């Protein structure tokens, strides 16, 4: 069968199924059918059947969701002429339809994610292409940049075929001549320090006259001053693993139209939710769903897009669009959609090859998400993916899915407040009896859970998506409206990532969460009152009240997220097993081994005693780096000493003095990307709906208490009001 013919048959079968699904059968008929399909879905899930069985599960789910959508559309909207019911009813309806549309779009995207690309090496006899490595920076500090530059310099690639560029936007000519003499001096100092660092590490330093077009402009300045065939981009806080270029460059040789090889962002530190809820070690991170399955799904449709960092791009392709696009504040995705629409291809390599940092505080997390949401809205407005010329149909759907996703704050807030219409205002925004609600809405919700779990279960626990959406929605909603009001207004704000939470406190953005929580509590009280006072409509009240309680659980959990736990920067440790030597008090080298490393320090075990060393001493250690480095000695400082039987473990802090010290640190932390992958896959376990729900409830209960406790301890005076 040819492709067109298969498509035609598929279309006909789909039409037939839709006709079948929209037959207005009785409630009982729907219930029996839905129960049987749901049972089959659960069986497929329990038996972990893959391949076509997974497809069948999704088809069953699609049918029930379609039936829900049909019923919701035809039977539940309040009458048009009762505007007080109709308008909120319509808004709720549209929110639900948005969710259903997004479900189907994401179903399309991840229907069959690409398996891992087989990694290849460059052919021996062919010339090795030249690569420029761009590390744009704006305000990141010296230490961080030193680490990243050092890691980039250590890449496993012929020395003469790649150049590392530090693109410094923090000390442009304009900044160094700032009217404010303090600022000017600061920029000048930065300028000199970084120039010095680059010289020590063998990198090129580049800055420009003015900060035009933010990150895109900075990168384009890099393009204008370099000549390499390919361009790798790393954010200042994204240190590449040694094999980054080995894993990415060979793909370009196989496809002349390839413009992008994107790799995942892997983070060494937890985001505020993971940190405050203490789920970092056990639960898959938020971004793992995107990099673990969505990008792979997009890759099938040749729609994997550039994520701003950890990617390799073809200069020739970038030249066709005059470099990186800078209209929106998410230049990465915008560049990708432009190049895709010109017939260039992209590839996504699902192997963590950079390790980075993500925002530590809730406020900077929200700042980062605001930029993403606003940028994606700008792309939606400027490029409108569904009708973007040059894209394939599949790419249009993919980009529509990626951009429309960021509208989630709207439905999330609508779902949050919808129960209030009934509980407080007595509006009937959803006309259905308790039985209908059970037969249609309940099966839909369960089917939705099963489908989401089947698609994303390994990368996302149940209800965690809802939690992430909720904590972002409260502040993102306004940001979305501001884009719609003035699409050109949002400006690029660099996300701060090297902060630390020195003491436990409430986030400065916490106040609305407590207010919402209070409202939800009032709604619970109202529910109880209504059940008592109006027993004749207790059924409906209980349904709506149950929905409100779900919101309350979510909001309670969010209180924990905005209650910032104390944690100093750099304490996330990675277990390693490498040998090392420490110079003892007597000047002799003592053998030991590295227990774990972090971005701030390293733990060293000496099996045969302390060798005369102790707390508070500066010492020198050395180890065999993976990269070819001449000087392998590094100064560290002993912060703690723990005895372990005969041996002793020193907790040491790095005391880097010169550039090559940073390369040693980078070699410790970033050298082995296999380590990161192991860490990720340890977390990527589908714990199932039931266990996931139970765990979520447990977390929510605890975090609600913690959130309220923080309010009592830190809420008065400053805290939330800051």
């Amino acid at each position, binding site marked *: *069968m040819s*492709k067109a013919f*298969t*498509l035609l*048959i*598929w279309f006909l*079968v*789909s039409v*037939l*199924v839709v*006709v*079948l*699904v*929209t*037959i*207005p*059968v*009785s*409630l*009982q*008929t729907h*219930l*029996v*059918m839905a129960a*049987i*399909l749901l049972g089959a879905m659960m069986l497929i899930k329990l038996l972990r059947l893959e391949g*076509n069985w997974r*497809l*069948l599960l999704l*088809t*069953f789910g699609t*049918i029930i969701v379609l039936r829900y959508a049909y019923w919701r559309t035809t039977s539940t909207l309040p*009458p048009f*002429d*009762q505007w*007080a*019911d109709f308008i909120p009813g319509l808004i709720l309806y549209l929110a639900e339809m948005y969710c259903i549309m997004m479900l189907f779009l994401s179903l399309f995207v991840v*229907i*069959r994610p*690409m*398996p891992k*690309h087989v990694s290849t090496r460059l052919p021996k006899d062919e010339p090795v292409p030249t690569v420029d490595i761009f590390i744009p920076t704006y305000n990141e500090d010296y230490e961080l940049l030193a680490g990243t530059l050092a890691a980039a310099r250590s890449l496993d690639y012929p020395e003469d075929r790649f150049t590392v560029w530090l693109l410094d936007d923090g000390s442009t000519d304009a900044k160094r001549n700032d009217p404010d003499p303090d600022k000017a001096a600061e920029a000048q100092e930065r300028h000199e320090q970084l120039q010095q660092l680059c010289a020590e590490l063998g990198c090129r330093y580049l800055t420009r006259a003015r900060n035009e077009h933010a990150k895109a402009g900075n990168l384009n300045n890099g393009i204008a001053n370099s000549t390499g065939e390919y361009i790798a981009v790393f954010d200042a806080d994204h240190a590449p693993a040694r094999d980054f270029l080995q894993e990415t460059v060979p793909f370009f040789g196989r496809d002349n139209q390839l413009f992008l090889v994107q790799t995942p962002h892997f983070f060494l530190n937890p985001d505020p939710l993971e940190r405050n809820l203490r789920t970092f070690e056990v639960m898959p991170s938020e971004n793992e769903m995107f990099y673990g399955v969505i990008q792979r799904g997009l*890759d*099938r*449709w*040749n729609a994997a897009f550039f994520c701003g960092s950890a990617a390799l791009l073809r200069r020739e392709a970038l030249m066709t669009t005059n470099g990186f696009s800078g209209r929106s504040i998410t230049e990465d995705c915008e560049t990708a959609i432009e190049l895709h629409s010109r017939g260039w291809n992209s590839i996504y390599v699902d192997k963590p090859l950079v390790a980075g940092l993500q925002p530590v505080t809730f406020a900077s997390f929200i700042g980062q998400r605001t930029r993403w949401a606003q940028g994606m809205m700008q792309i939606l407005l400027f490029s409108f993916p569904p009708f973007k010329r040059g894209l394939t149909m*599949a790419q249009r759907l993919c980009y529509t899915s990626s951009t429309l996703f960021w509208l989630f704050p709207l439905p999330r807030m609508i779902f949050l407040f919808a129960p209030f219409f009934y509980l407080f205002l*007595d*509006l*009937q925004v959803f*006309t259905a009896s308790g*039985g209908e609600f059970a037969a249609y809405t309940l099966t839909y919700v369960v089917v939705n859970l099963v489908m989401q779990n089947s698609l994303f279960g390994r990368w996302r626990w149940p209800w965690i998506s809802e939690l992430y959406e909720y904590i972002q929605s409260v502040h993102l909603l306004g940001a979305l409206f501001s884009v719609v009001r003035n699409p050109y207004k949002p400006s690029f704000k660099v996300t701060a990532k090297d902060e630390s939470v020195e003491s436990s406190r409430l986030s400065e953005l916490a106040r609305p969460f407590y207010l919402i929580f209070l409202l939800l509590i009032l709604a619970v009280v109202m529910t109880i009152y209504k059940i008592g*006072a*109006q*027993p*004749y*409509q207790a059924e409906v009240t209980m349904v709506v009240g149950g929905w409100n309680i779900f919101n309350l659980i979510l909001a309670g959990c969010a209180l924990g997220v905005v209650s910032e736990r104390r944690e100093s920067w750099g304490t996330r440790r990675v277990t390693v097993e490498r040998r090392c030597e420490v110079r003892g008090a007597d000047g002799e080298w003592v053998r030991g081994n590295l227990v774990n490393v972090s971005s701030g320090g390293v733990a060293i075990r000496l099996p045969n005693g302390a060798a005369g060393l102790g707390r508070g001493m500066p010492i020198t250690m050395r180890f065999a780096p993976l990269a070819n480095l001449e000087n392998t000695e590094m100064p560290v400082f002993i912060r703690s000493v723990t005895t372990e039987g005969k041996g002793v473990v020193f907790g040491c802090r790095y005391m880097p003095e010169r550039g090559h010290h940073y390369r040693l640190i980078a070699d410790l932390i970033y050298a082995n990307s296999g380590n990161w992958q192991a860490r990720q896959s340890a977390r990527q376990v589908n714990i199932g709906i039931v266990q996931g729900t139970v765990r979520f409830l447990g977390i929510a209960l605890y975090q609600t208490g913690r959130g309220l406790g923080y309010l009592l301890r830190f809420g008065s005076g400053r805290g939330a009001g800051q």
Partner: protein
Amino acid sequence: MIKPALLSSVALLVVLTPALGQPAPFDMSPESGLVRPAEPDTQPDATTAPDTPAPPAEPEFSRPLLPAPTLRLAGEEARQGVVVYLTEQQAAAAARLEFSYLNALVVAPEASSLRVRINQTEIDSRPIASSSAPSLVSVEVPAGALRAGPNVIDFRASQRHRTDCTVESTYQLWTEIPGSEARLVFSGDQLERIGQLSELGAVGVDSDGQTTLRVVSAGLADAAAQSVALEIAQQVGLALRTPHLTVTLVDALSETYESGVLDLVLMPADALPDSVAAARPQASAAPMAAMVPVTSGANTLVLSGPDWNSIARAGDALAASAPADGRPRYDLPLPVPMMAGGQSASLASLGLDRVEFNGRRYAVDLQFELPSDFYGYRYGELNLRLDAAYASDVLPGSEIDIYINGEIASATPLLRTDGGALDDTNIRIPMTSLRPGRNEATVTVNLQTRSDAVCGAGWTGSAPTRFILSNASSFSLPDYARATAVPDLLVMTGSGWPYADAGAVPIALGQGMESLASAMMFAARIATASGRTIDFSVMPQADLPPEGNAMLVMPMDTLSPLNASRVDIVTAPSATGAAAGDLRNQFGNSEPTGPISYVTDWLRDAVGLEVSDLRLWPGTDADYTPPPGAVTVSQVLQSEGGVWTTLTAASESALRTGTERLIDTDKWRQITGRISALAPNSDTLTTIAPQNVAIRTDGTLSPLNLRLIAANWFSGNIVYFTLAILLGAVTLMLITARLLTRIGRRH
């Protein structure tokens, strides 16, 4: 939902009610106040009456009124109307209305009233105070109140309990008017005479509420003559407009006039008896349909002509002069509109006035008609858009209940405790109990109020208005599927389907005249229910085509063995056969018991799921053994395609007496399923639903109708719906899997 404007209207209601709700003073309408001397008023209209002074003892003529043995007014607000057809002369004559009534002891006279209206004019209003013995009432009808043709006489009772203020107590309230005592009494000579065919409706009913057609005929053994007789019975039935028409085949004309009796002389001209010899010359020349005066004074209709063909044409002339359209039936004074899919009808168009109510339980019956191919009872919902308001006195727990054909279909609580308006409130009512033909919807409002909980002395009658129902409220039907499930006797008894207006229908009759009379009654009853006639063609039972629709009316023992096997009735019960049949029936009808019944009961109660809807294969339609002496109707879809309806009993006489009982409206409306049987000493029919059902449509199958038919069919065959979905899903999965190997990046 809180709208200031509505609240203020409720407030107004509360303010006004003390004034409105004053108990009607029981001295307000002494009957004398309404009685006027009839003579002077009637004289100017009466063209026949000369200006001679009235004779001292003018002859009186009385006509029974009720198309039923009794008229019962139950509940706090009750209304029953009847239609009475009058001739020109009757309408013009001085008349009085006489009836007697008896009421329940608990009806409080000072708070209750019985009102009578003729054609919307109130002619009498009195306290209901006749609990010990029937009271006779005689009311002069004001001149001009009656008119020729149909007149609606409306009895309305407003009844309040003496002591109780509960909803339950309202069930004890009743007033009964026996048919034997309710009549119109006219003054004048020869008023019983019906001179024209168009006045045939004035034949009316006898004191039992029945009408009798006495057929004097000759040559009825002939098949062609029988076909004509069957047709004419229907035409006369439609002309008379009475629901219950008994047909007797007699040898001689009546000896005297009796109300509710029509003599029909039905024969070729050359056989006409001497008493109607005057008609002979005209009938010898051409078809003739006329009321012929006879010496006895009995109303005599002559349908004649040179031969039976022309008699059939005479019948058509009769049908043209007294058509069914636009002439209400005696027992249906309110409009019964036909409701098409997507149509709505206001309560006003169903005959309801605006309601202001101060009692506890208000109930009103409304009727509408559905086409014979209404096929939406398993899935759809009809909508009642309610325009109503209630006072702040009303407590939660009050309810609006809708019954459809006697089955509870929806219960809507009144939600607000502070009084409110149900403005454009939509009540969705499952169509489960709707059926083709005439449907009865009962809207009831049960009001719990704060003041009723106290229930002071005399409060039942003096409470202020607490509920207002606007007759702008409306019923609306969704687009429903158009198809007919066969067999279903109900569709035939209500709509004449599939026989009416469908060309000649073969029918086989028993040998005796009583079979013919039964067939005539049966056919006439179908006609009066549906307003349509069936064109019968009588033939020997051996000639009935199994591939075509047909009917059989004959005693069981005369059914040929072949036909007996086609009608699903055990015709010759041997002792063992009957026992086996009974056993089978018992088994077939019994509910499952034991642990399974818990599951099935739960499914039915909690989810509304019938286990029979889940079956994969239909059961078998076993032959039925009727109880001894019963009259049985069966409908069987022949494997060749014909729909055969059979009316049978053990003997000719059992057939006739059984049919006479069967055509009583209460029993007639019970006929349903594939078999319905009425035992001699029972008022309840035994009905058997078909296991195997075929779907028939009228030929045109639009995709939309097909979809709705599928919805109804799947809703009764749930497993098949699930299988269809599963099949669709697997197909879609396979083609998607195949498509996925064709599109997108491959590895």
